[in-house]
């Protein structure tokens, strides 16, 4: 079963706009990670945020984490056509060295 849910399921924006994707999860976590997946390809790790962190930046990416609401958001600023992909959040449960639990993903389309 999948723990998280990304919202929205699909998002279409113009190049240069910002894209915001949200993720909710169910259990206590050790960290939360965001991955990108281009069609037919493997997952590329974007950013990891630990449970004691509230915000993290990496280039054009900004991730927030609200453990009280069990939610996270991924913001991509100044989007490019090359950002078109599916984006997944994945959580590591607090109980130890456990596998990642993924949501169903947000399919982002950036139109040039």
């Amino acid at each position: 079963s999948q723990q998280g849910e990304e919202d929205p399921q699909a998002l279409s924006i113009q190049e240069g706009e910002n894209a915001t994707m949200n993720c909710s999860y169910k259990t206590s976590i050790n960290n939360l990670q965001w991955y990108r997946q281009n069609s037919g390809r493997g997952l590329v790790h974007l950013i990891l945020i630990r449970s004691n962190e509230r915000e993290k930046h990496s280039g054009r990416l900004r991730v927030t984490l609200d453990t009280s609401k069990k939610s996270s958001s991924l913001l991509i600023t100044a989007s490019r056509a090359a950002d078109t992909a599916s984006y997944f959040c994945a959580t590591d449960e607090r109980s130890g060295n456990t596998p990642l639990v993924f949501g169903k993903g947000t399919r982002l389309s950036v139109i040039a």
Partner: protein
Amino acid sequence: GAGVSQSPRYKVAKRGQDVALRCDPISGHVSLFWYQQALGQGPEFLTYFQNEAQLDKSGLPSDRFFAERPEGSVSTLKIQRTQQEDSAVYLCASRQGGYNEQFFGPGTRLTVL
């Protein structure tokens, strides 16, 4: 440096055939995970190794699925008597330590006819 590699990238099998999928993790990575990704869904956990020990196989959908990592590096996921519902992308990931990011391979797309 080399990332995680998987082979074959694509596999077409007739129903009832056995298949073997290979994963070469990043050198030195202790943990290795297998995931199954159905079309339009996120990856779902199958099994996990720490070195050669299979510590968790709770995600394997049936006893037709078997995984091994005999020397603590390369891993093989075997599916016996494949069924159409086994059609999916099989992803392998490795991780250096317990709480770091997982690095994924490109996946093997299995189609069972």
